[in-house]
């Protein structure tokens, strides 16, 4: 590393105009840009489809080993082709070399796992670094060879979309058709192997042959993707879109489609940004676009997203707080035989913090309690709801004592945890079961389901 002028401010980036942006995004900004954007999108789709199955097969990082392993293949192919006097830089020479080396890398991982005591993680690391080290060594040898155009080889490491030609787009299109076709035709087989390998082999499916086909698809995607995103980042295209898609659904079919869309969109947007802005390497931008989609999915996906998760936790917490207040108030009222006001201080279990203020406001807004100064009292509806809650609590307490053999002094805590998630039907069953054993709690508030329904 050496240093020139390093002021952050001395270069202004050229900002593309709106027209340029629209032209690129609509694939009408000239032939080259169209080829690049289309190829990247197709690559994203293929990787998204294949990646789903490798991710579920827990082989996500195998793709990384495979991608790194292609480097010595590229270098060797170049050396051999140069020695034979062929056009050494042509893709027809380099890509088969890359594919063979990638396959060799995967085979090495499997040999290491099968025949030594090393685990898969170590095997992947060894193959990844060993093959790549060999590749780097060979590249340094190529640098000193007396043939031209050796400089272009290093572009495979970080990718260089600018070098892509129409036939590359055609190649990616072909690969996309192939992977989607394989994904559709072998959907059942791949998902069976991914979810339950043992069952698949017991049922007579050729598990190792299916694995081999999946790996062949990974090799294909990796090799055609080398030019676009480079061998260090191609693995991201195989992992990020399916991992993002998995937040949205639990169905494999939907996941594959979503993953293909996310991958395709990352490729499309990333390549467009890269084409519009100088010094935005396409591979990195594509991966970062995918990364952004991943983070968005992680946060907002309705089923498995973090925000939805947080929301459900908060809703449960609110319900627990409500029911605690209601039960305490009801028990006090029950003891006194008439509606009584209780200081809020005694109701809030966690002290007078934000939580108790929220609970108080919540109950008041729902019309379940009335407050005067710092005391609270149940309304009629609140009393009915309090009866339901207390009833659930006591039924569950009694159930634990009767059936689960828990000492009476220990049940309160456990009852506290479970009573909030009892469904009305379950409460009915509890009641029947306890009545059959003549073990109904003696002090059980009356509460009919009609009232419970009214307050829900």
């Amino acid at each position, binding site marked *: *590393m050496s*240093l*020139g*002028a*390093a*002021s952050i401010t001395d*270069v202004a*980036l050229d900002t593309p105009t709106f027209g340029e942006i629209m032209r690129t995004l609509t694939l009408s900004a000239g032939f080259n840009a169209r080829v690049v954007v289309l190829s990247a999108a197709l690559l994203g789709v293929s990787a998204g489809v294949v990646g789903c199955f490798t*991710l579920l097969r827990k*082989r*996500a*990082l195998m793709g*990384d080993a495979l991608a790194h392993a292609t480097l010595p293949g590229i270098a060797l192919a170049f050396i051999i082709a140069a020695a034979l006097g062929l056009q050494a830089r042509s893709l027809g020479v380099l890509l088969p070399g890359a594919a063979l080396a990638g396959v060799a890398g995967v085979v090495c991982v499997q040999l*290491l796992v099968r*025949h*030594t*005591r*090393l*685990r898969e*993680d*170590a095997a*992947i*690391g*060894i193959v990844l*670094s*060993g093959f*790549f*080290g060999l590749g*780097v*060594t060979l*590249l*340094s*040898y190529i640098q*000193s060879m007396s043939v031209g155009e050796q400089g272009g080889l*290093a572009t495979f*490491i970080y990718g260089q979309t600018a070098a892509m030609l129409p036939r590359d787009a055609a190649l990616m299109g072909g690969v996309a058709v192939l992977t989607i076709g394989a994904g559709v035709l072998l959907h059942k087989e791949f998902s069976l192997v991914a979810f339950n390998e043992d069952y698949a082999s017991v049922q007579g499916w050729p598990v190792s042959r299916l694995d081999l086909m999946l790996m062949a698809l990974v090799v294909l995607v990796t090799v055609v993707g080398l030019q676009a995103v480079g061998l*260090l*980042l191609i*693995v*991201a295209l*195989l*992992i*990020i879109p*399916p*991992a993002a898609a998995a*937040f949205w659904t639990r169905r494999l079919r939907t996941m594959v489609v979503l993953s293909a869309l996310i991958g395709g969109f990352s490729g499309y947007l990333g390549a467009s940004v890269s084409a519009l802005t*100088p*010094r*935005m*390497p396409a*591979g*990195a*931008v594509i*991966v*970062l676009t995918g*990364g952004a989609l*991943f983070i968005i999915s*992680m946060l907002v996906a309705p089923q*498995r997203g*973090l925000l939805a998760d947080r929301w459900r936790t908060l809703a449960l917490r609110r319900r627990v707080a409500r029911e605690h207040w209601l039960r305490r108030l009801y028990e006090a009222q029950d003891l006194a035989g008439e509606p009584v006001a209780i200081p809020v201080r005694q109701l809030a279990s966690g002290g007078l913090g934000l939580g108790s203020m929220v609970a108080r406001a919540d109950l008041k807004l729902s019309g379940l309690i009335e407050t005067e100064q710092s005391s609270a009292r149940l309304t009629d509806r609140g009393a009915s709801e309090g009866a339901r809650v207390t009833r659930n609590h006591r039924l569950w307490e009694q159930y634990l004592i009767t059936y689960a053999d828990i000492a009476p002094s220990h049940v309160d805590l456990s009852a506290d945890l479970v009573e909030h998630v009892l469904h009305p039907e379950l409460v009915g069953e509890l009641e029947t079961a306890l009545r059959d054993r003549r073990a109904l709690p003696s002090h059980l508030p009356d509460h009919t389901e009609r009232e419970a329904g009214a307050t829900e």
Partner: protein
Amino acid sequence: MSPGVATFISLDLPAMLAGTLGAIACALLGNFLVLRRQSLMGDAISHAVLPGIVVGFLVAGSRSTWPIFLGAGASALVTVLMINALRRIARVEAGAAMGVSFSIMFALGVLLIEQAAARHVDLDAECVLYGQLEYVNWYPPTDWGEFWTLDTLRDVPRQVVVLLGAVVLIGAFIGLFFKELRITTFDPAHASAIGFSSGLMGVLLMTLVAGATVAAFEAVGSILVIAMLITPPATARLLTDRYSTQILLSSAIATVTGVGGYFAGAFLPSMLGLEGVALNAAGSMTVVGVLLLIVAIVGSPTHGVLARALRRRRLTRQIARDDILGLLYRLEEVRPDHELLEDQLRGAIGHGAQTRPALRGLVSGRHVERSSQKLFLTESGRELAKSIVRSHRLWETWLVEELGLRADHVHQTAERLEHLRADGQPIEPESPGRRFDPHERPIPERD
């Protein structure tokens, strides 16, 4: 000092030292990663430090060490936290969590490098991968008289000093926390139960891995870091079952890898007649490391492929010998004047290729006699055969009486158990007073 030696000391020695020290630092830590099945954390971290390095470089505006070190450390920390958060909170599978995290960080780094290049900052993405060992130079006085003074040491290249510090620090860490590392590595649950925090040890370990990665990256590049984190410990793991031996062995292997790899890269091409070719040092060190691993895979006396194949062959041959003896003994029992032809043997005991060498061994050991293609037991062979058949029938008796298996189900199991040896003798389970096995065959008496 002759010019050749001076060149060596200026150009080769510091580079070799930096590479070797980097290899040792990584290998020491790698032992725990390999044993904890976290090998790929090293891979993830060494990719993920890239954005931190670039930011540190941009902020400092120079290649001074500390900002880069801090930046790299920060992004390593971010990555480790991100991986953990993805696994714990978002429930993403471990491999995918790593893949997502490090590829996003690495892509960010690549982007930042390109952006930095726009500001005339010459930061090369490739040097991060390959390192720049060839720029680690040292120019001490060329006169031996002036050489041996303390002033000479002042000019030792920064990278060598940093890496030496890393090795000392990591060595001290392992020495101090030897016990804690061992228990949290092999039995984290037990460790937590008796009050050692596995999580804390894991965090410390990851911090050191990040530190080693950063210390090593400038000189040797991330590829050598990944290789040295995994390959020497993996090699050592194939050579020993002892934890402490493995750690020492892995650092020895790392040393050999560093020195050997450097020489192979720098001098091998010209020795092979390829003048003017110098191979990338980090690359050739990686290759030498892998070659050593291959040697260990094939030749390790305990876990090597060759040793295991030999052991398996020896066992197969012993089983074939036992079966030949047993067969002859049983034939004698039924018909003392039996005629077993050598050609029939293979079909009769079914050990394929091992039958013939096993028979040859028996004949040359004078346990079996061969006359005109027919096979007979000699006196010593009969004794051996008797002990095997005795073991077989005692096992059958034991299986029926002690385990309550049915008499027609025990032959297969006994057929396997008769080959077990204790002190070179077939094992004889106790069935006092028994003279016949469940199939009413006499159990041969021991003499």
